């Protein structure tokens, strides 16, 4: 169709949608809606992953983000029952300047992110690297150490979250010291 391959069509549509939803995330007033839009954006991105035949990653992506993180967000939003009315808005000038800054950033990035043509690649047909097998191999051989150390990270996050999250039972301790 019109000289474009199907993948190119898909790429176009997905990109368009992704950007659309992303913009909606930023510009809708109601937090709940933005969460939903963000989920949609993630779906589009997952689509891209598929196009890049990183199938396993796509799945994990959906599971982690849409499944876990976004739920968490929704949960908090509900908890604080935020809605369009309670949603504070920046002063128009602030928002405008934010937009301008974004525009500028886009401009300089467009200028600076060129030169990909000169990449000399080891292009090996339709790659199989996205499959669980390969990824697993790499992850547990080459990236073993990071994988292990990531556990420390999660542990830290765990402790931290608990420490912050749990209410203090002993008020009379020297809270007020620095």
């Amino acid at each position, binding site marked *: 169709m019109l000289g474009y391959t199907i993948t190119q069509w898909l790429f176009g549509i997905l990109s368009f949608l992704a950007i659309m939803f992303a913009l909606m995330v930023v510009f809708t007033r109601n937090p709940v809606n933005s969460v939903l839009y963000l989920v949609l954006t993630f779906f589009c991105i997952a689509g891209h992953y598929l196009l890049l035949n990183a199938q396993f990653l796509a799945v994990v992506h959906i599971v982690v983000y849409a499944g876990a993180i976004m739920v968490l967000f929704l949960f908090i939003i509900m908890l604080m029952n935020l809605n369009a009315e309670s949603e504070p808005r920046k002063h128009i000038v*602030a928002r405008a300047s934010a937009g301008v800054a974004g525009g500028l950033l886009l401009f300089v990035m467009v200028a600076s992110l060129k030169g990909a043509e000169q990449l000399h690649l080891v292009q090996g047909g339709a790659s199989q690297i996205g499959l669980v097998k390969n*990824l697993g191999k790499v992850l547990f051989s080459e990236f073993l150490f990071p994988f292990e150390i990531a556990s420390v990270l999660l542990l830290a996050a765990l402790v931290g979250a608990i420490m912050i999250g749990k209410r203090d039972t002993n008020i009379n301790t020297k809270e007020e010291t620095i």
Partner: protein
Amino acid sequence: MLNGIPINYYIMLSAVLFIIGVVGVMARRNAIIIFMCVELMLNAVNLLLVAFSTLHNDASGQVFVFFIMAVAAAEVAVGLAILSMVYRNFKTIDIDLLSRLKN
């Protein structure tokens, strides 16, 4: 060319998403939304990484994405904990109202 799509397109796409995230961070006052925008930025990076990994036909890019996800999850966990605590004390998460510390 990744099955017919120039890598530049991917770079630009993720750049745009990234910038949208940045703009979101700048333009919103609701801490949660800001946080979500950060997530958006991270995802833009993820997309870029995946694209490159396919381009280089090298799995490590995608593995890296796993780590990003893990970190993101951890960050979100801690972050939301802190947010809820802030909400508990300030009764708001409007960043413009959290400006006691200044000068």
